[in-house]
């Protein structure tokens, strides 16, 4: 009765299980997106009166996002802040926190990075760029840690406090740019442009940048570290683990890999890029921030699922009572999660200022609106870092294609925000989508309704 295990027929191959799980994971979001576009199409039809407009709109969207000149790059440029911001929101969600203050943390990160970018005019890029990014990270982290601390100590609900911090951040940024960090020579109210050394490199610039030996050094170091991490992961897989057993052997592998990659990159890469480099369009805005974002995504995934800290954070998010009883410190995890969340948002702001804005500065009218979107992206992707990358790409594509869509069909580009809102609605209430498409909720055996709910409690 209550002890009898529920027998289940399970497919034998674990690959098939993963594939099935993948399909399951993607099915609902995909259908949500489809439903949103269908509904959006109906709205366009109603407001314009012509079915042709719907086609023009959606084709224009696709063309504007991917096909036009530089369109794909622009889509990727828009994707980058979404990835970082949504990771921030996702990390918060996983710990049971609704950080809707990512917008404000984004601003503070931007301002902090701009400030550091303007200070220290003589520093080489190998120091100045990471420093400026770090400033953004710290700024965002502090901005989020304040409501985090308040929540941990006083229980102040973070939805309201982070929202308030947003509005304070808008004003603070205005104040700083208008009074403290003002560029006297510019026509508009904005901060001075950051030093060239603090800029985030666009892909076009890379061959030139690499001519500076210090920059090449920095890049080589980064590549070497990445190579080492990959080597570490590879040595952990079952097959290689048998072949490389002792610690001494491992150290040799690491040494060889690290030194080799470093040398090849340091000496080879600048020369190589001088000879051949595909990114030759000076107006192409794609920048290395994207790669930073991707690397950070992997880092967040590793943190959440492979480390003790991540385990604690997820436990606090899933059941704070049980976490307490098991010895996990709720206060510490709330603070860490909020700080991390803010750090990611701050990094997004830093990258945006240092790599995307034309003036490489913060303008007083700096409005992003990325914040609300990233909450939606995180919900759509169920807080999974890789889902976040995919959803961010979708959002970036929609945002980028919207301008051309308007040109092509006359439909206001703000219908995109309507579409995005609808996607969210359908994701939040999958039952609606199920009802539309007549999908019955499947019950896999191990996820059946618990047997205990009717027992005498």
């Amino acid at each position, binding site marked *: 009765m209550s002890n009898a*295990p529920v027998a*289940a027929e399970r497919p034998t191959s674990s690959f098939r299980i993963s594939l099935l799980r993948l399909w399951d994971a993607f099915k609902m979001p995909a259908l949500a997106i489809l439903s949103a576009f269908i509904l959006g199409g109906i709205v366009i039809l109603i407001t314009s009166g012509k079915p042709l407009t719907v086609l023009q709109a959606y084709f224009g969207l696709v063309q504007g996002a991917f096909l036009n000149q530089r369109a794909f790059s622009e889509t990727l440029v828009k994707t980058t802040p979404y990835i970082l911001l949504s990771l921030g929101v996702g990390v918060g969600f996983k710990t049971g926190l609704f950080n809707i203050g990512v917008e404000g943390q984004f601003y503070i990160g931007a301002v902090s990075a701009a400030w550091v970018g303007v200070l220290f005019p003589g520093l080489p890029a190998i120091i100045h760029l990471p420093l400026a990014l770090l400033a953004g990270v710290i700024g965002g982290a502090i901005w989020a840690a304040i409501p985090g601390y308040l929540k941990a100590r006083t229980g102040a609900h973070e939805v309201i406090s982070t929202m308030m911090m947003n509005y304070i951040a808008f004003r603070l940024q205005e104040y700083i740019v208008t009074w403290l960090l003002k560029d006297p020579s510019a026509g508009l109210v904005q901060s001075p442009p950051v030093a060239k050394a603090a800029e985030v490199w666009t892909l076009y610039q890379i061959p030139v940048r690499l001519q500076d030996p210090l920059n090449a050094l920095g890049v080589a170091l980064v590549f070497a570290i990445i190579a080492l991490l990959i080597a570490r992961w590879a040595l952990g897989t079952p097959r290689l683990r048998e072949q490389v057993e002792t610690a001494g052997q491992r150290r040799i592998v690491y040494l060889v890999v690290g030194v080799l990659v470093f040398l090849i990159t340091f000496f080879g890469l600048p020369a190589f890029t001088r000879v051949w480099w595909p990114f030759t369009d000076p107006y192409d805005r794609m920048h290395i921030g994207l790669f930073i974002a991707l690397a950070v995504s992997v880092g967040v995934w590793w943190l959440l699922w492979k480390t003790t800290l991540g385990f604690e954070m997820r436990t606090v998010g899933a*059941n704070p009572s049980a976490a*307490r009883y098991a010895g996990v410190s709720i206060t510490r995890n709330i603070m860490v999660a909020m700080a991390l969340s803010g750090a990611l948002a701050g990094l997004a702001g830093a990258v945006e200022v240092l790599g995307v804005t034309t003036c490489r500065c913060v303008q007083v009218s700096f409005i992003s609106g990325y914040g609300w979107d990233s909450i939606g992206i995180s919900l759509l992707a169920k807080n999974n870092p890789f889902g976040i990358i995919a959803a961010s790409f979708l959002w970036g594509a929609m945002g980028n294609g919207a301008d051309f869509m308007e040109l092509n069909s006359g439909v206001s580009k703000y219908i995109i925000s309507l579409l995005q809102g609808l996607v969210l609605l359908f994701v939040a209430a999958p039952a609606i989508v199920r009802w539309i498409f007549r999908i019955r909720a499947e019950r896999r055996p*191990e996820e059946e309704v*618990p*047997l205990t709910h*009717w027992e*005498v409690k």
Partner: protein
Amino acid sequence: MAFALQATGITKHFPGVLANDHVSFTLEKGEIHALLGENGAGKSTLMNILYGLYQPDEGEIMIDSQPRRIDTPHDAISLGIGMVHQHFMLVPPLTVTENIMLGQESIQASSRVLGKLAVLNRRSVTERIYELSQQYGLEVDPEAVVQDLPVGAQQRVEIIKALYRAADILILDEPTAVLTPQEADELFIIMRNLVNQGKSIIFITHKLREVFAVADRISVMRAGQVVGTVKPSEATQEMLAEMMVGRKVILQIDKADAHPGEVVLSIDGLQVMDDRRHMAVDGVSLAVRAGEILGVAGVQGNGQTELVEALTGLRHPLEGRVTILGHDTTRATPRQIIEVGIAHVPEDRQKHGLVLSFSVRDNLVLCTYYQSPFAQGIELNFPVIENFAEELVHTFDIRTPSLETNVGSLSGGNQQKVIVARELARQVKLLVANQPTRGLDVGSIEFIHRRIVDARDKGAAVLLVSAELDEIMSLSDRIAVMYKGRILDTLEGKSAAREQLGLLMAGVTKEVAHV
């Protein structure tokens, strides 16, 4: 023979479980009919069907020999059926009067036209409550706020709530779970009183003793079926126990004598406040030695919860000291206390003991994930964790389809086993078990009792807190009785008598009794 209620062929399915299997049950007018069965037998389901909270898949119900449909509690109430649930259905911040009139509010006649927005007439309800209180001997204060009432008073409110709605049939679901033996006796007197005034009562319990005290007939349920209906005069405890479980039940666990060693846990003058700023633990001192089981008996709500929370670092005491193995843990964090060597089986397994959405594997390392070998520095070592989890599942016979299964899909007994496995797998110096077998079937109860005794035999000190007097008496080497935040007395397990313990649980100490 007039029947107040007849249920025939009641069948109810839940996903994966047949809760009621063609159950037939009758209630004669003016009788107290006890429904006996272990946790999970289907008693509550049957009663919820009679009260309209569930709908049966098959079967028929007759009230006063007329077939009736009971689709909602509203129908049940209008048919004269009233239910006192095991977990009280009272809204804590509202007064007694407001709770009683909820759903059937009386309004000032002049504002009747406003319908639900008319003015409430509290006075008429209050007067009626006084009337009922006199008539049936149920003392309550209608203006009191429910959350400030002691448990016994709350129960009386529940009964009056049913009588206010002119219930002729009363269903009492495990009413004695929250009462001392003396209070239970008082309740039985009230029940007799009600029956003498024409009511009929269904009385659900899993405690064998009680049915002999008060029942006119006893029906036993097991695995969703009614196994038999007998008169108390024709039955014995052993017979009923066997009917309940389906095999011979050992009513007393078999344990060797205790050989207590050094003092492991020492509590000195502990004072702890609860969430509502009342003194829940009022100067408790006790000591538990290695290799002995100290049982803390007492009805829930006398400070046991706060005592355990203070011991495990979840609540800071106001005054006093807690020492575990020489370490002062009075203001330590839960993690520090775990590292000293405490194992804690919490009261509420689903809320405090497990993360229901995590896998069995994750729950098994919930307390130790950060220690080597489960983690190296900050990184988790999954192969080691998997092996460990597999071993535990095997040793503790946890029935689960896989290690990855969400622990929320396991049965109550298996969930508790996960917790017990996790806690006992460590080097346990002190085991604190709080209501460890609540809501479990007999098989699981036996298993867990066995494990607790094993831990003791391996040299752990065990602090067992339980509201089930049988459990305390069966397992404990020494018994301390807690009443209103104080330990009234500590007795030897072997020689303690039920009567004695019952009196202590009700606050009657030797001095008072002699006066």
